[in-house]
């Protein structure tokens, strides 16, 4: 439980007030109950417990947040300046986040960004969730492979197992929005997007629009005008240029 919740600031969980989740049992026989829907799950691995528990927390925060923009996106930071990585499931968001953390970026989240009115960036800092069949792809990044908590659906990768660190600030500035697309075997491409292209893609990943005035549309377009947006296509970590992490840090350092 400590690993699951270590990166979650208590006030974020508090925002999902009125929701009760309970975990009972012991290793190998966990039971997770979401009292809001009266649904219980039996979970046989620590990885699956962390996956389902943090998934429920993500869902309830996004469902109830009325003062912050919730984006289905990962985020990392360097010197307090964040790279936002919005993407649908399967686009390589978590794998790319793992690579960035292993290459010196501070971890914010792999799933849910919380953005305040002043565009300050924070997120739900659960262990990075790597799908069960994706662990091999990141194995070369792990300094402590034994620290990964295995699951049948997803593996929970603690930030410490990558030799990385969690961003200390809850108020990172947005320095770049990066839309990733992983497809096995394709080469590397990195191109700047127009504001309209980025706007379309960002709104598709805004998950609590209905809770916000004007569905958050104006705020998202303002964010895009203030932040350079790129599309990254890559076919694996080997296809990323050797200096890619350094060039990203350089690009956001002027913010």
């Amino acid at each position, binding site marked *: 439980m400590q690993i699951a919740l270590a990166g979650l600031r208590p006030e974020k969980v508090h925002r999902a007030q009125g929701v009760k989740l309970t975990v009972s049992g012991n290793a190998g026989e966990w039971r997770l109950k979401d009292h809001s829907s009266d649904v219980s799950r039996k979970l046989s691995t620590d990885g699956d417990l962390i996956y389902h528990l943090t998934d429920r927390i993500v869902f309830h925060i996004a469902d109830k947040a009325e003062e912050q923009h919730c984006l289905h996106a990962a985020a990392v930071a360097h010197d307090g300046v964040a790279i936002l990585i919005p993407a649908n499931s399967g686009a390589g968001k978590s794998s790319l986040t793992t690579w960035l953390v292993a290459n010196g970026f501070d971890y914010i989240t792999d799933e849910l960004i919380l953005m305040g009115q002043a565009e300050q960036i924070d997120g739900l800092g659960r262990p990075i969730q790597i799908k069960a069949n994706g662990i091999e792809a990141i194995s070369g990044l792990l300094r402590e492979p034994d620290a990964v908590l295995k699951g049948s659906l997803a593996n929970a990768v603690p930030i410490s197992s990558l030799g990385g660190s969690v961003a200390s600030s809850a108020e990172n500035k947005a320095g770049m929005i990066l839309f990733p697309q992983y497809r096995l075997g394709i080469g590397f491409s990195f191109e700047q997007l*127009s504001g309209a*292209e980025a706007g379309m893609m960002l709104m598709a990943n805004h998950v609590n629009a209905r809770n916000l005035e004007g569905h958050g549309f104006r705020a998202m*377009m303002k964010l895009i005008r203030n932040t350079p947006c790129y599309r990254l296509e890559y076919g694996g970590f080997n296809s990323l240029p050797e200096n890619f992490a350094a060039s990203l840090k350089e690009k956001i350092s002027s913010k």
Partner: protein
Amino acid sequence: MTTYKPNPNCLLEDMDGELLLYNPESAVTLHLNGPSMIVWQLCDGERTDQQIIEMVKEAYPQQAEQISGDVATVLADLHSQGALETVA
């Protein structure tokens, strides 16, 4: 003939010369550029679809043959997405 006007509930943003239109009723974002942007801008609640077609033909005489169909398609798309309303 049909006359169209913008859905007043839609939100519009000019992003460096291209338009993004957000429909809060459907939570759909539309990217208007090129022909779709021109057609959208001509839908003022006064002009009919035939008048819009003629205006676009005058602006692009070399493509006059295909313009009727293209404009009709854009109008139908924008209407089906809730971005345009018909005027009674």
